[in-house]
């Protein structure tokens, strides 16, 4: 570098004035990074606190969900946002990752349930209509557990009952689903008091188990004596009182339903505990039937077709149902060397005893029972098939006394006991009809047809001659008849002329009659004169008298 001239040259530079000693506050500059650190730490901490939980929920489909937009809501309050939507490892499900606000932390526990709220219309109600505009969102129902969890399997359908709704659940067992579905209403005396929460097949595939939720004030009506029945559809019945239609509500006709009630003649009992198990009867009538605990099995052998007799068909005694058909089959009868229909019936003696209150305890001893039965059979007790419905040909079994039936002995050794049968009823009628038909079949219908044909031919010719006759009458007899009639009319006209008022005959007749009247008057005068002067007959008329 080149030497430069000294800037101080040529002028006297002022001397800087020394200042008083000053405190050294230079280190204070370090406050800045410390404050920055504090601010940074605070921001980081705040971020951590506000971060909330990140959860992942699996669904079958992500329809309507959008990463970054779809909200997570509880009671319609925003508590988070869907951050990402992806496929599960096995590509079967959709994994939705959502970030929740810190206040939602307590809601995310083990048994919390998630589902997607979309617009939905079911039998009775419409849900989530708001989502038509705002788009689907994920709703949750917090669980009661204390353990938190971060991964959930979402529900495909919204839960029917939220966990914060007071009430109790009851388990119902039925043979089949009927038309009941999840969400079907539960009725108590036609009041809607709950819903069916779940419906699934039993593990063994035999039967269906429902879970019904009954809302809080009404759940106390579910007692140990309560009967549940399927209230779906419409119950038509024709009774002696006429036509009767029964249904719980119009909605239950469409979406099915369950009803419960304590039978009117029984005790309600204790309030049922939650999750108590009940049988779901198929209708109200069945539900209210007395519970059957004792049944007697009898075997019936028929000598006629049992077509139309189904298992479950009623067995009645003079119109009162006392049992039902348990089995229908065929059996080899070695005695008569034939195959005959065998019907097994269940008779519920309680039904009988409940109607004859005196004998409240059913007969349990078999020998006693057999002896009683023998006595009844001696009086003519027989089983008979009867037609319940002429159109469908449904049969049922009726028990009645037929004193004219031949004596029958009950084989006491047999189990189940055999009850003698009487043929009859419609079946008998049927067989006689069959006989008639058979006789008709035997008739020589062909020959009759030939005869009929010839008869018809003869009839034809006869008719033709009749026709010719009529023609002759028309052409020959009719003109003559006309002439006769004309002359008759002439004769009548003459007669009329003769009889008319101004006719000469009439005038003559009138003159004659007048003369006759005069003659009669003269005779009367004469008679009077004679009455007064009878002597004149002898002396003749006196002169003076005659001149007067």
């Amino acid at each position, binding site marked *: 570098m080149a030497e430069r001239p000294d800037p101080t040259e040529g002028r006297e530079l002022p001397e*800087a004035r020394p200042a008083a000693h*000053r405190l050294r506050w*230079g280190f204070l*500059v370090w406050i*800045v990074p410390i404050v*920055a650190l504090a601010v940074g730490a605070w921001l980081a901490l705040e971020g951590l606190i506000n971060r909330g939980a990140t959860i992942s929920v699996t669904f079958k489909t992500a329809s309507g969900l959008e990463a970054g937009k779809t909200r997570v809501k509880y009671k319609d309050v925003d508590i988070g946002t869907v951050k990402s939507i992806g496929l599960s490892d096995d590509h079967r499900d959709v994994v939705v990752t959502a970030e929740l606000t810190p206040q939602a932390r307590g809601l995310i526990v083990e048994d919390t349930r998630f589902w997607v709220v979309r617009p939905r219309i079911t039998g009775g109600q419409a849900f989530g209509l708001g989502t038509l505009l705002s788009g689907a969102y994920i709703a949750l129902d917090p669980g009661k557990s204390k353990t938190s969890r971060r991964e959930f399997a979402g529900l495909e359908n919204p839960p029917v009952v939220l966990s914060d709704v007071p009430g109790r659940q009851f388990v119902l067992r039925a043979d089949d689903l009927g038309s009941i579905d999840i969400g079907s209403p539960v009725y108590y005396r036609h009041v809607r008091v709950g819903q069916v929460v779940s419906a699934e097949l039993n593990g063994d595939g035999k039967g269906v188990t429902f879970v019904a939720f009954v809302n809080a004030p009404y759940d106390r009506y579910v007692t140990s004596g309560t009967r549940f029945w399927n209230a779906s559809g419409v119950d038509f019945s024709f009774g002696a009182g006429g036509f009767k239609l029964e249904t719980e509500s119009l909605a239950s006709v469409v979406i099915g339903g369950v009803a419960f009630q304590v039978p009117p003649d029984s005790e309600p009992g204790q309030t049922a505990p939650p999750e108590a198990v009940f049988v779901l009867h198929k209708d109200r009538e069945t539900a209210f039937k007395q519970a059957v605990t004792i049944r007697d099995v009898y075997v019936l052998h028929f000598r006629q077709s049992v077509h139309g007799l189904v298992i479950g068909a009623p067995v009645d005694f003079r119109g009162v149902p006392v049992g039902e058909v348990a089995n229908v089959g065929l059996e080899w009868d070695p005695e008569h060397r034939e195959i005959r229909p065998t019907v097994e019936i269940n008779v519920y003696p309680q039904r009988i005893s409940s109607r004859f209150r005196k004998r409240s305890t059913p007969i349990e001893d078999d020998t006693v029972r057999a002896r009683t039965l023998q006595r009844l059979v001696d009086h003519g007790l027989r089983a008979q098939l009867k037609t319940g419905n002429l159109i469908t040909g449904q049969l049922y079994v009726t028990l009645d006394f037929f004193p004219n039936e031949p004596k029958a002995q009950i084989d006491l050794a047999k189990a189940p006991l055999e009850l003698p049968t009487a043929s009859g009823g419609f079946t008998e009628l049927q067989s006689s009809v069959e006989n008639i038909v058979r006789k008709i079949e035997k008739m020589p219908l062909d020959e009759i047809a030939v005869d009929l044909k010839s008869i018809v031919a003869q009839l034809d010719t006869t008719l033709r001659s009749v026709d010719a006759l009529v023609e002759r009458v028309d052409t020959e007899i009719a003109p003559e008849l006309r002439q006769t009639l004309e002359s008759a009319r002439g004769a009548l006209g003459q007669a009329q002329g003769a009889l008319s008022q101004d006719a000469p005959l009439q005038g003559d007749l009138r003159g004659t009659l007048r003369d006759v009247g005069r003659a009669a008057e003269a005779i009367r005068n004469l008679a009077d004169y004679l009455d007064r002067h009878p002597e004149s007959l002898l002396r003749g008329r006196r002169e003076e008298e005659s001149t007067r």
Partner: protein
Amino acid sequence: MTAMAAARGLLSCRVCGEVNRAAVRGASAGVHGASAVVHCARCGSPLHARKPDSMRRTVAFLAAAYVLYLPANLLPILETGELGGPPRSDTIMSGVVTLWTGGWWPLAVVILIASIFIPFAKLGVLTWLVISVRRGSAARLRGRTRLYRLVDVIGKWSMVDIYVGALLVGLVRFEPLASVSPGPAAIAFGAVVVLTMLASQSFDPRLLWDAAEARRG
């Protein structure tokens, strides 16, 4: 070799420009912190051979800037809400990405450069300068000085982001329809910009030469 003004006991007043003769030699100890202070004979302003406490202040401001640089980039800088949509919050980087994917790529580039590259470059350059002073490096002194000048001039423009944000917050106030509010990163980012400016201001480029001189001499 150049005879430094300070070495000759001459101090120029930064306020009135008067050159003073300093009796106290300790005034040259700018590198190692403040020493006894002298005042200008003409205007009475304090005289320093070098910016006072330069290294310490620069390092402190840099450290603070580094600390706040993280939240400035990681936390949302702008929270926007619009009708029907959920509120969304953007960090600087996600904002850039949004702009880019939205087709506003020139704006995206501007924001990217002004808000991410420049602050980072400033921090990096200043850090490098401080380290090189500490180590007394004599290499590329002119180049480093030019860099410093660049940092000082360009640093102001890194406020673009904050400016845009502040503008939006002020402009978009249709509360039910749309809303924009600054996020926590806005404060941090503003602080980073201010701190880097302070750091570049408190850094004395003459120290580069002093250090080189000291090493050589």
